[in-house]
């Protein structure tokens, strides 16, 4: 199930970012990020809180505009797209928010249907319901279909967040801290789910996290974000070279916890 990338093999680039700069006022958050994500891989971005991981992934989804640099998704430059074309592109992208961002005035079913009924007008009510049930089965929460988001636990909310993006069958999944704030067992379950999603729906993913277990179990490639740039990139063992002091502090911190 894990995707092993051979060096030198020709690979399709799904997301490419070059020389990306973003700052808020005087605070420079990203300072020249370069990144290429290949078809079918799980690309993990690790970094400490406040290092700009969410900013990076939001820029890829077109929620933030780069101050400088180019963000390409499926060959389209995200910040230059017209509204209509951006919407079309977004139907191929799933974004799982750090906070899950479920619509709290709607039931789980309405949450899942929301984008579907508006973007796939030809679907009948029955087909929509079937799609809802299918993704709920995929995340193992079929029985919650008529509940409100406020009635779910943190881990269940994360799952519904994933289901809500899966329903439009995206080619790309962008996970912002899928395991943050969850207990270790639930974390493992979510990590499994991420891998399942990748093999079942053949998605390309970027996974943002500061959890090493998550990085290790889900990541095909890992990049370490610090001070606005990637300081290391490669497989898990490459990145966590115990000789590098910058990595070591991160490593120690995670395991002492």
């Amino acid at each position, binding site marked *: 199930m894990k995707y092993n990338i051979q060096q030198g093999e020709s690979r399709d680039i799904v997301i490419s970012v070059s020389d990306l700069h973003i700052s808020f006022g005087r605070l420079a958050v990203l300072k020249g990020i370069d990144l290429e994500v290949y078809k079918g891989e799980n690309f993990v971005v690790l970094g400490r809180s406040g290092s700009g991981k969410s900013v990076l992934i939001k820029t890829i989804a077109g929620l933030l505009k780069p101050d400088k640099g180019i963000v390409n998704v499926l060959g389209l430059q995200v910040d230059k797209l017209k509204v209509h074309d951006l*919407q079309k592109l977004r139907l191929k*992208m799933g974004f799982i928010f750090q906070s899950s961002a479920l619509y709290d005035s709607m039931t789980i079913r309405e949450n899942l249907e929301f984008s579907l009924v508006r973007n796939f007008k030809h679907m009948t009510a029955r087909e929509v319901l079937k799609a809802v049930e299918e993704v709920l089965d995929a995340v193992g929460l079929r029985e919650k279909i008529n509940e409100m988001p406020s009635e779910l636990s943190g881990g269940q909310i994360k799952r519904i967040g994933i289901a*809500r993006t899966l329903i439009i069958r995206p080619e790309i999944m962008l996970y912002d801290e899928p395991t943050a704030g969850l207990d270790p067992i639930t974390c493992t379950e979510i990590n499994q789910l991420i891998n399942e999603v990748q093999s079942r729906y053949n998605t390309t993913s970027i996974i943002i996290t500061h959890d090493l277990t998550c990085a290790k179990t889900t990541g095909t490639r890992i990049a370490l974000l610090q001070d606005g740039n990637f300081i290391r990139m490669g497989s898990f063992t490459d990145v966590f070279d115990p000789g590098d002091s910058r990595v070591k502090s991160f490593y120690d911190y995670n395991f002492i916890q």
Partner: protein
Amino acid sequence: MKKNSKEFVFSRRVDAFFLDVVSIHKFITRFFKELFRRPFEFKEIIHQCYVVGVKSLLLISLTGFVIGIVFTKQSRPPLVAFGAASWLPSLIGIAFVRAIGPLVTALIAAGKVGSNIGAELGSMKVTEQIDAMDVSAVNPFKYLVVTRVVATTVMLPILMLYCTLVGMMGSYLNVHANELTSLVSYFDHAFSSVSFIDVWSAVIRSFFYGFTIGIVGCYRGFNATNGTQGVGKAANRAVVFSMFLIFAEELVAVQITNWINGI
């Protein structure tokens, strides 16, 4: 971000005010652009109309009714002193249709509906639900803002007519208790002094008030920042700013109506 937020042309407040004016203008322009663009969210518009009605109906009924009674009770002695008690229904008709109905409805709706819209959209903004709509390829402006503004704009005139009627019924209670006037002759008197222009002016003004309440509430909510604190602020500012605008509009409207009436 281009501009350093610490550089102000005037004072912080004055600058913020002008920046607000510019971005509200953009917000309104965007509203009209999206209003006529497919797809239309009819179901959500109906739902929002219902919400506006339900949220404000009770308070509007109560306030209208009480103001009707009190206003009549307080106006009687001076009119009686001039021997003009029989003019009471006319006075009430004019007062309610021209001023009390539209204003009371607008202020109550600003307080109940405007703050509700500000808080609801504000919390959706700070919990990233609006961004979530955006990335799931649904236009949040269309789904959240257009529906709410249309709902308040359509509902305010209806609520205004309702408030006016309830107020006049309250007033009738008092009139009937004192003068034993029949309902038919009461309304006959009350409406005989009210002109066609008065009624239409009230309806048109209410349209504007409704639009103001919707736009300001949505604008504040859509631009909320700083977590939970920002939500409260958005709700609060929505009420204050829309009331301010309603008073300003009322003053302009009075001038225009008087000019049309040739007073």
